[in-house]
């Protein structure tokens, strides 16, 4: 009976974790630039992986492996934050400007002008 309860809690945690991890992946594909992609990847990766690991802790019950999994969860949390910050900092110091809506519009207009010029020359 207890097994049924722990197993269902595990399933809930694992499926929530997978859901948030997939949101992170969709975010990386859909968002426009590196900074907003980092929003999706750091937050959702930490939370999704953390939930999945907590689900495994519940599945293990009180044991040595559960302690190991908890240590790994803490490690994921800190390393994920630090890696996200390092990537963002490297991007900024490398001179990448953040994406903005009106700037995107300007680039599109500029491209159209160039295209018109090109057609005229032909």
């Amino acid at each position, binding site marked *: 009976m207890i097994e049924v309860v722990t197993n269902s809690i595990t399933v809930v945690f694992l499926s929530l974790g997978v859901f948030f991890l997939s*949101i992170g992946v969709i975010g990386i594909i859909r968002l426009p630039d590196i900074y*907003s992609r980092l929003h999706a990847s750091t*937050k*959702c990766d930490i939370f*999704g992986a953390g939930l999945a690991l907590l689900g495994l802790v519940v599945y293990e019950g009180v044991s*040595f492996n559960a302690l190991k999994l908890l240590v790994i969860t803490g490690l994921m949390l800190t390393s994920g*934050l630090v890696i996200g*910050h390092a990537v963002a900092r490297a991007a900024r*110091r490398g001179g990448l400007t*953040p994406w903005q809506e009106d700037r995107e519009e300007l680039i599109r207009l500029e491209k159209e002008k160039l295209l018109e010029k090109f057609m005229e020359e032909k």
Partner: protein
Amino acid sequence: MEKKHLFVGILLLIFWLVLTGNLHPFNLLEGVFLAALVTFLSHVLLSGLWEELRLGIRGIWRFWVCLARLTVDIFKANTDVGERVLDPKLPISPAVVKFKTSLKGVLPKVMLAGFITLRPGTLAVDFEGDIIHVHCLADSFAKELMEREAEKAVLWIFEEER
């Protein structure tokens, strides 16, 4: 070889034993060797930043309390990113704002950057002295950031230390 090196070495050995999970003599020897090696490699960090990295027992306890409180914010942050990403129109208007902090010391600043990244819609990008450049997914998050909830939490953790 000072007291702090011994402390860090023993901490690393305990970490190794938790991760490997047996007390076989060879494993123990390996652990001692690796702990000594890592302590030696992090010599620069230990000599320069050791005083900055200290946190009392009360501080450690308060850090865990803050992390537990932050869990709600982390959940909100994730659902918010999810809503924006799964919306076909992709409703984001990113902006970079500068956030001036009154915190001194290395560890409080690291913690502040971590808390800012975990809270909804904000990402700590770069440090320049006391100024943090923060990337926000929308303007409303910039306003929320200026209420300084994250900084208050860090101040509360380090209250007893000074």
